[in-house]
């Protein structure tokens, strides 16, 4: 079920009304689980079986790992769990990609036989719920959490509908205790927490959801036509047009993904459940590592805690640290999709992080340098970082390899032609105006921290006017054909 459809609004209103009326805790939790499964089933139908499989597989393996009395046994069970999870992910998401590469390789060696593609449907959200579950298992293995005794609690953790499809990626240690009254160590003997819709949470949640819809439906969806027009075939376009496309796509993907996250956070908050933030003004990052502290935070911290640390992190030699950074970002790129453009995207970010680390290691005092500490220095750092980040958006957006290399080359080596750029702006005036509006609002939201909280503290009349204006902006510029969230396909 897409958030930006009337179906979701109706679903959510019915769900909230039921939760508000029926106070029985058992019922509320079972209803939350059923609603989450319904939400998933609505758009994935029979593929819900995979979600159930992941839930049951890791619930029992988690318990087995905890109960195992030897390290060897724990490790064997961990590997079993990982094989089950990654096997599922690999089979459904990467099998055809692997077969294609195998066929291409075979062709190079004049092998006439081609392995037929499986043409499997990509299960929605598989990358997200697999990561939830893997995180839970590794936390148990590391002794950081004890497994929950309640299958229902675990199933809610894996399938919690606000974040099920596109995150943020939850951590069991953070989420599971919230389902119980005593916020400590999965006390399943402790009574279930009653889901109370509190006024402060409700108001803030609605504000966040409204802003999320605004980002997605007003900004992202209205910039999309220009992005599609530029990147459908960028061959022959001049440098500034490519840059315009890269910036537009940067706005689109931010509006799309952070909009989704805001809706998810808001919906969870209304239920009194806190899920981690996923974005923190990423386009004001002053370095590549700063960018990853601000962009898709739940993924970057997941990769850091479960992959980077497992590889040795920065505890080994410097070259090994750089290698680890590249590996993590390579896999992070591949996580987004089984295509070479995502690999390029990941590797570029890996290279940025590694080079940044090299520079920090070589010039440890640079950050304290007078220039970099000044306003001009910060603006300079932001511009350089964002120039590099927007270069990677080209590889994220353009799948065709020839098109991608052409566009990236044009982005790096400027040709100073403006004819095509002007033509694109003239034929896409509305998206262009939307882009400018986004930049202005983005700067305002950067300067005024905690904007959703500030808005939710408005007096009722002002708050109603705010909601009305935003809703009208969304409705009046809705093109009747809702675009999918970009991260749905991951």
């Amino acid at each position, binding site marked *: 079920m897409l958030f930006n459809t009337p179906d979701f609004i109706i679903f959510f209103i019915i769900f909230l009304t039921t939760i508000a009326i029926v106070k029985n805790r058992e019922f509320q939790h079972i209803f939350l689980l059923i609603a989450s499964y*319904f939400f998933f089933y609505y758009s994935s139908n*029979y593929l819900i079986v995979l979600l159930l499989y992941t839930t049951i597989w890791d619930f029992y393996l988690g318990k087995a790992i905890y109960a195992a009395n030897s390290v060897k046994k724990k490790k064997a069970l961990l590997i079993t769990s990982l094989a089950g999870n990654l096997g599922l992910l690999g089979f459904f998401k990467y099998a055809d990609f692997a077969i294609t590469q195998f066929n291409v390789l075979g062709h190079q060696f004049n092998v006439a036989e081609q392995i037929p593609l499986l043409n499997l449907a990509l299960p929605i959200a598989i990358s997200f719920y697999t990561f939830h579950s893997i995180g839970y298992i590794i936390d148990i293995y590391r002794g950081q959490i004890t497994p929950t005794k309640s299958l229902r609690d675990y199933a809610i953790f894996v399938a919690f509908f606000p974040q099920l499809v596109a995150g943020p990626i939850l951590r069991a240690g953070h989420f599971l205790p919230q389902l119980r009254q005593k916020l400590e160590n999965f006390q399943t003997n402790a009574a279930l927490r009653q889901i109370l819709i509190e006024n402060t949470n409700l108001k803030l949640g609605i504000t966040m959801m409204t802003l999320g819809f605004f980002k997605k439906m007003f900004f992202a969806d209205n910039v999309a036509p220009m992005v599609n027009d530029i990147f459908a075939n960028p061959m022959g376009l001049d440098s500034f047009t490519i840059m315009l496309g890269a910036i537009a796509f940067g706005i689109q993907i931010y509006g799309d993904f952070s909009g989704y996250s805001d809706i998810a956070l808001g919906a969870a908050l209304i239920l009194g459940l806190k899920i981690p933030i996923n974005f923190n003004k990423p386009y004001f990052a002053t370095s590549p590592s700063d960018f990853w502290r601000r962009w898709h935070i739940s993924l970057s911290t997941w990769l850091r805690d479960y992959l980077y640390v497992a590889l040795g992190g920065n505890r080994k030699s410097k070259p090994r640290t750089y290698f680890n950074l590249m590996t993590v970002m390579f896999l992070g790129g591949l996580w987004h999709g089984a295509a070479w453009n995502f690999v390029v995207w990941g590797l570029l970010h890996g290279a940025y992080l590694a080079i940044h680390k090299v520079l920090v290691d070589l010039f440890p005092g640079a950050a304290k340098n007078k220039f970099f500490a000044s306003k001009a220095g910060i603006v300079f750092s932001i511009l350089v970082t964002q120039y590099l980040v927007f270069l990677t958006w080209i590889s994220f957006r353009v799948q065709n390899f020839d098109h991608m290399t052409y566009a990236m080359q044009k982005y790096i080596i400027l040709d100073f032609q403006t004819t095509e750029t002007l033509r694109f702006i003239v034929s896409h005036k509305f998206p262009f105006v939307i882009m400018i509006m986004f930049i202005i609002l983005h700067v305002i939201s950067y300067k005024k921290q905690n904007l959703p909280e500030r808005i939710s503290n408005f007096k009722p009349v002002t708050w109603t006017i705010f909601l009305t204006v935003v809703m009208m902006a969304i409705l009046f510029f809705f093109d009747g054909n809702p675009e999918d969230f970009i991260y749905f396909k991951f």
Partner: protein
Amino acid sequence: MNLKIVVCVSIALLSSLVAIIYFQSVNPDPLMKRQDEFYSQPPESNKDMVLLLGASHVGQLNTTKINEIVSETYDNFVVYNLAYNGDNPQKRFSSMVKILALKPKIIVYGISYRDFESKTLIENDWLRPDQLVGYILQIDTTPFQINPKLTTLQAIRDAVNDDELFASRRQMTIPNTPFFPYHEDQLVIIPNAAINNMAGTTEGAGLFVETPEKTRQLVYLKKMIDVFSDNEIKIALFSAPLHQTYLADLPDTSKTNFSLILDDVAKNHDVKLYNYTSKYSQLNIWANTDHVAYNKMSMVYSEDIAQIILGEAGN
């Protein structure tokens, strides 16, 4: 839950909904407006109607020329071209009742690759809750198609009047073609050499068509054929012509699957199918890579469609 908050949200939601509904009623979508006008007051005629249906590739036909040719043999026929931009079988199916009310004798439907793009995959309809109601009641649950953005931008254009901000292109209407506005660039023939230079950059390069069983639009096309047959309306399909550059850009799988779709329709339905996809692919008659120009030098396309009508009328 605080009643005050619920009231605030309800007021915001209701007032914005009322505003958009009012705005839409005052400024209807130009296409919807044209359709409402046409269907609510269909042209009075004692002649039998022949309807041309499809998207922009059908819109480029010269209805006047077709009428001339058809009336030479059958002066009791009048041809209307009801093509509009962005049409597809699913959208067209939603206006079936209105089309049937016109009591046409012959329907000529133009289809193309775009109609079957893979973004409209079929997904076991009966298994999906959102499709279940429609499946049980055997009704179409496709949401009502509206495009407030189009109306809003049009209103802004009207408000700023001669200002170039969001200015739309000049357009004109052609007799018997009520839903399809013509822009100047649709009338001009672009030399083949110039079109050939677009190789690798046409829309065809990224157009993917799935196999028949995965294509939702095919379901609607078949439903439509069945409804026309049940109402004793003759129907002929033709695949719209494309320029060689566009055809060369199309992925092979799309070509194969499009052929399978055509075969599927031809085998399972009593309908004549005319394949014009590559018939004019090398001729110098194109406005762009996928539209024959509306031009007196491009009449061959309209003449062929007139022959389809004559063939159907003679059966």
